[in-house]
């Protein structure tokens, strides 16, 4: 294999000081059980991409069912004899597919690839460090993450099938085995997998925060950091503070499920003709604890996407990002606000209407920093000399989807409007545009942009651009239309829309969406082929093929173990484009500043 991801002999594991040469470790220590943040980052990315394939397969099944509700897919009945006997999906399988699609995509694709994968890869490089603050903990976090992913996939194989109460797992549906088949062992395995995931994510988050705080190169003040680093920094703090309530809730749900407690189960429940012995629990308690995590979680996912787009844009506009300092403050503001708005997921839950007013008014304040950030991205294009590389196309797509998806938030954060839109396809359209679209496009942009750095080879631009066209257009169509399905009253998590007269007219729209989905998913093969082919046959990449300014571009592609020969001394902020230096129209952060 002529590709390689680590160049040169290994260097000192300490993050500062001289670099004594050690003997070369074997393949296993270099590429499997490695504490090198670059290897760990790539491991997360590759694992996440595999999980994405699983998530996309589940999405295909969902759209097959909703686009062609009575069709018999005989070839699928051979692959999935239990879930699709004689080629028609059973409702129990559909609910498991929906639940697992959401869970896998949120936690095991976006979080793995974008947050842990690129976070691990980029943060030490961009702060000028040799590695993360705690390399061993970092390695541990990956292997626990892998275990959590395998556990989650294994839940399909237990009795009753995978969890089927939605990724939100509301009790009593998720707490009582007889309520839905997935609530037999499937839900328990789901909870155990999530516990492992949270442990892994906590370790990862600790690492990123500690690294940004304490291992920055000399001269690299916080206000000289790339927006990518800022976004990972804030997202990690958010994750550290927001995940524990889900841990607490998961423990309580496990106890309710297996040990007879009544944290979430009230008295008088009658399921499968039996009166359950529980008393006094509150289903709403789960919702509060879940969404206390759930809302910050979506910002944990989207902030890195936005930060990455802000790194890619200036490389292809050849101008600095617009409003850098303001954008930093917007990220901080959104992080803080995101922790006090969780109730907007619960406007019709039975929560007090007064709480509803509070949550509505505060949620809508998030529009301010997010609008400013979005406009800053757009304004970064003003006066630009554009190069439409693949990475740039995806970043432009990020701006577009952030705008349209974000505007949907004005509806859902508004308690009055939400009364009609809650639990309809409007919500599905909104969150897919944001954590499916913005993050997906940013992930692709990041891969096309940093692939040369990671693997020392360029990806194919023609295939890449085709990939963009096959992705943006169908993606937008699907999820834009879903907003309007919601306005027409189509509820979420429906196995079919055939049982209601008022939903008959959505049949044609669902068909169009399903066809677009098939186009979208097929288009991803262009990416997979490009990715794998380029690993072996891509043109060799120079250290700085995009003429970009941040620190990772000052070292070889791929960087050696230990990253930097000597600790870089930073002289400039992260977006010094449009200046004349010997290198051209930009200055890397280590180039001495003309003004003293």
């Amino acid at each position: 294999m002529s590709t390689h991801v680590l160049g040169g002999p290994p260097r000192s594991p300490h993050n500062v000081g001289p670099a004594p040469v050690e003997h070369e470790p074997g393949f296993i220590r270099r590429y499997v059980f490695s504490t090198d943040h670059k290897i760990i980052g790539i491991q997360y990315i590759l694992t996440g991409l595999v999980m994405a394939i699983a998530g996309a397969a589940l999405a295909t099944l969902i759209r097959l069912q909703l686009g062609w509700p009575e069709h018999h897919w005989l070839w699928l009945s051979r692959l999935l004899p239990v879930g699709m006997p004689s080629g028609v999906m059973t409702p129990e399988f559909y609910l498991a597919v929906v639940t697992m699609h959401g869970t896998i995509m949120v936690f095991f694709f976006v979080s793995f690839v974008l947050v842990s994968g690129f976070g691990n890869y980029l943060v030490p490089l961009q702060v000028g460090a040799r590695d993360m603050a705690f390399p061993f903990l970092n390695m541990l976090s990956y292997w626990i993450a892998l275990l959590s992913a395998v556990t989650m996939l294994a839940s399909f194989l237990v009795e009753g099938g995978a969890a089927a109460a939605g990724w939100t797992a509301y009790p009593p549906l998720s707490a009582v085995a007889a309520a839905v088949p997935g609530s037999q062992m499937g839900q328990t395995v789901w909870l155990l997998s999530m516990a492992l995931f949270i442990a892994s994510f906590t370790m990862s988050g600790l690492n990123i925060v500690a690294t940004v705080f304490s291992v920055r190169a000399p001269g690299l003040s916080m206000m000289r950091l790339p927006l990518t680093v800022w976004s990972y920094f804030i997202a990690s703090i958010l994750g550290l503070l927001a995940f524990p309530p889900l841990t607490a809730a998961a423990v309580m749900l496990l106890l309710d499920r297996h040990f007879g407690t009544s944290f979430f189960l009230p008295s008088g429940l009658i399921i499968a003709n039996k009166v359950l012995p529980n008393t006094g629990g509150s289903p709403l308690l789960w919702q509060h604890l879940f969404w206390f995590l759930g809302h910050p979680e979506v910002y944990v996912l989207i902030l890195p996407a936005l930060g990455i787009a802000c790194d890619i844009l200036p490389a292809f506009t050849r101008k600095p990002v617009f409003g850098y300092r303001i954008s930093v403050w917007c990220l901080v503001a959104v992080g803080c606000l995101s922790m006090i708005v969780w109730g907007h997921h619960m406007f019709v839950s039975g929560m007090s209407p007064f709480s509803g007013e509070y949550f509505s008014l505060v949620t809508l304040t998030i529009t301010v920093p997010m609008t400013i950030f979005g406009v800053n991205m757009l304004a970064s294009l003003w006066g630009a000399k554009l190069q439409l590389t693949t990475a740039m196309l995806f970043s432009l797509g990020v701006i577009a989807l952030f705008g349209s998806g974000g505007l949907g938030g004005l509806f859902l954060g508004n308690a009055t409007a939400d009364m009609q839109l809650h639990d309809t396809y409007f919500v599905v359209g909104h969150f897919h545009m944001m954590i499916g679209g913005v993050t997906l496009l940013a992930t692709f942009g990041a891969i096309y942009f940093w692939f040369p750095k990671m693997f020392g080879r360029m990806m194919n631009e023609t295939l890449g651009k085709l990939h963009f066209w096959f992705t943006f257009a169908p993606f937008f169509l699907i999820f834009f239309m879903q907003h309007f399905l919601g306005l027409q009253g189509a509820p979420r998590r429906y196995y079919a829309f055939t049982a209601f007269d008022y939903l008959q007219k959505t049949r044609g729209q669902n068909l169009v969406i399903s066809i677009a989905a098939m186009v979208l998913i097929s288009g991803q093969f262009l990416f997979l082929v490009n990715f794998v082919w380029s690993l072996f046959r891509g043109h060799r990449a120079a250290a700085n093929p995009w003429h970009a300014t941040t620190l990772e571009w000052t070292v070889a592609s791929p960087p050696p173990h230990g990253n930097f020969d000597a600790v870089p001394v930073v002289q400039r902020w992260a977006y010094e484009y449009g200046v004349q230096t010997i290198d051209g129209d930009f200055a890397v952060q280590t180039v001495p500043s003309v003004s003293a």
Partner: protein
Amino acid sequence: MNALADDITLREDQMRLGLWMFLATVTMLFAAFTSAYIVRRSGSDWRHVALPPILWLNTLVLGASSVTLEIASRAGLERRWRAAGGGFAAALVLGFGFLAGQIGAWRQMVAEGVYLPSSPHSSFFYMMTGAHALHVVAALAVLLWSAAATWSAGRDVRAWDAQVGLCRTFWHYLGGVWVFLFALVSLY
């Protein structure tokens, strides 16, 4: 410039930062349990179960272990290694004693017929003290690690200073959490 010393100082700072952030996470966990407790407390079926008196003894034992740990670390900072070693041994014994006492408390409750699902109060009690005990197990491992460094002759003094700082912080923090939890389940 002493690069090695700088290296260790940075290491210390990083470990301390890492620990404080970890403690922030742990605090959020217990805050979540506490807020759930408070919400549930207002339910009509709340029945306060009698808590075994051994819990008072356990509290004293845990407090004593913090005190001996403090004495041990002061001694170590002054390089009085025998005293430090003794203090760590005492802290360990008392720490394990606390865990044993907690297990004893749970067994006493089970003997009285108060199980996990018996009442919301007992559910929270077992769950929160169980979570606390798990963290104490982790902290005992850290304590053991510091104790081993104290007892060994070839100890690295600067590293020891950093290590014992982390150990004390984690241990006293869990002591504080225990006092809070005990007060919550007894008084509210």
